């Protein structure tokens, strides 16, 4: 008995995570949507679904790291918007900074925003949600410095960044997401940083007592999130073909829903990228299905908010270890 349980412990652990439920939900949804709309299971539509979640997927990659460490990042939408508009301005015709330098600047912007977030959260000790709510407003305000420039993206390399399909079917953005998720999974599993991050998310005081440099690792997690924000910003301007200060508004809601639905526990310590990936496909399919079924745009907004509340309620019920009476 023991032997078998050891042999299959990996599978049993997998079955205990919310991932199998997610796969089940997805299959049900596929059936329902394809019955409801004949345009759903068409190769054109599936291509669209996969290409549309590029930005949210990249953002989710970073937020998952932060949330496993017990943190929170609401500033992702604004940060990607800032990275996007700054690089769009730098790529403008009469400025024309070389493309690699633009990329470096974008990444530097994202990382420094993450660094500042991490610094305020760990060294000053403010609640991460309040901190990133503040930086969300600040960075969105900074984006509007370039509001009247309205830069177009004419650079072919940047245009292709988020638009190419491999073999005319498979979008390259999905490759980025898969690569990012695989690398981050490996980092979380096999490096000291990853294990420390899980420990911090599980019990921060314990981690501190065990001699783990909690502050440094938390700051690093926010920097990683900022890094992915800048990549997402570049993808945004690539796919939309211009730079506008309002890009990325409200992305935090969508990404939060994805990450929590994917089984990353609010408060940290638990989470895997397979779940996040499936949640990403689920949320994007719901969005796509609502478009195909002609659901009015404002009702879509309500449904998305309701989905977030539902998902966090399920998370709250699931993670209640011992029911406290208050």
């Amino acid at each position: 008995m023991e032997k078998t349980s050891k042999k299959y412990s990996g599978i049993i652990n997998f079955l205990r995570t919310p991932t199998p439920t997610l796969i089940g939900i997805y299959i049900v949804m596929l059936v329902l949507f394809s019955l409801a709309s004949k345009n759903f299971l068409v190769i054109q539509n599936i291509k669209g679904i996969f290409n549309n979640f590029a930005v949210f997927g990249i953002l989710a990659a970073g937020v998952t790291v932060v949330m496993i460490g017990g943190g929170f990042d609401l500033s992702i939408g604004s940060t990607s918007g800032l990275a996007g508009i700054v690089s769009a301005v730098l790529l403008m015709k009469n400025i024309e900074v070389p493309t690699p330098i633009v990329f470096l600047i974008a990444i530097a912007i994202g990382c420094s925003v993450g660094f500042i977030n991490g610094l305020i959260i760990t060294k000053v000790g403010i609640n991460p949600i309040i901190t990133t709510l503040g930086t969300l407003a600040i960075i969105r305000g900074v984006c509007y410095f370039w509001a009247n420039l309205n830069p177009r993206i004419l650079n072919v390399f940047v245009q292709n960044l988020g638009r190419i399909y491999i073999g005319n079917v498979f979008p390259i953005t999905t490759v980025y997401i898969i690569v990012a998720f695989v690398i981050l999974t490996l980092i979380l599993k096999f490096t000291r940083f990853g294990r420390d991050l899980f420990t911090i998310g599980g019990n921060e005081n314990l981690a501190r007592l065990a001699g783990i440099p909690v502050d440094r690792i938390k700051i690093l997690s926010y920097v990683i999130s900022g890094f992915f924000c800048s990549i997402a910003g570049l993808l945004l301007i690539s796919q939309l073909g211009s730079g506008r200060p309002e890009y990325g508004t409200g992305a935090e809601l969508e990404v939060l829903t994805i990450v929590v639905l994917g089984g990353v526990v609010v408060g940290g310590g638990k989470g895997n990228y397979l779940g996040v990936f499936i949640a990403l496909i689920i949320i994007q399919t719901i969005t796509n299905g609502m478009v195909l079924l002609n659901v009015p745009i404002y009702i879509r907004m309500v449904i998305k908010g309701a989905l977030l509340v539902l998902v966090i309620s399920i998370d709250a019920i699931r993670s209640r270890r011992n029911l406290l009476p208050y």
Partner: protein
Amino acid sequence: MTAMKAVEATQKKKSKLNNTVILFIILIVMFSVFSYIGRPFFFSKLNLIPMLNNLSFIGIIAAVLTMVMVSGEIDFSVGGNIGLTACLTALLLERGLPGWQVVIIALCAGLAMGAFNGILVTVIGVNSIMATIGTMFIWRGIGYTLSNGESMLAMNPVIDFIGRGFIFKVIPFPIVLLVFFFTITYVIMNQSKWGRRIYAIGANPLASYLSGINVKRVKFINFLFCGFTASLGGLILTSLSAVGMPQHGQGLELVIVSSIILGGTALGGGRGQILGTLAGVLILSILYNFLTIMNIYYFYIQIVQGSVLILVVSTYEIRQAMVRRRT
């Protein structure tokens, strides 16, 4: 033992007094400086009355949200609540309902929204920050759905009176409401059993539960009260602007929460003063009003709002850490 308690109590009273008094001194200094720099417009009837009107609904919501925050929870959905109430009011008026019925329905909607938040937090046990961020989007989305994304005219004698009426032909009605709600919350927090319970729950929920306080009920009723005042704020804003639009109250949660924290309320609960909140609301509203008068873009004011939030919370945290080190 009793002597020690008495000493502690006086010390507490002293420090409370000091914080609030310092805030009011800052307020007076700011007001004088702004009146000088922004002359002649800042200190004129043309500016002060609209400023007080605009401040009234922020203040009403902040006073009640202080109670929620002292009990250790938070409500970010007040801005969305305002948007929904505004659209609902305008829609019902368009359908031709009498004004007083519209007011009652809008306030009931506020109670329902508060109840929903309360159930999420107390029954299901969701972290209140997360729950109310989610419901914020739901309320605003419903507001957009009701109004179809447009702004609708809201003209009716009753609705007009709420925001633009005068009592004795001198005192604006929103100011009366503001004073009324601050008095009520002050009495609740400082004189009643209920307020004592709220402080106890914020300081230590487990101990309060063990000493026989129904923690869930107190928190639930706080959320209910908060939803009610948020929709009252929505009614005032609708009346002031004479339109109901779904964008009403967008980003207001940032201003309200930062003014409450500026007033000395702890994020984790257990500490906070209604008078401090009043000072915080006045300081921030005057600051933003001044920035608007000085012709600064809204987007840059947004930067200031975010920075003020972070700055205020950091000063609070740093002071807290210093106190901890000293003891």
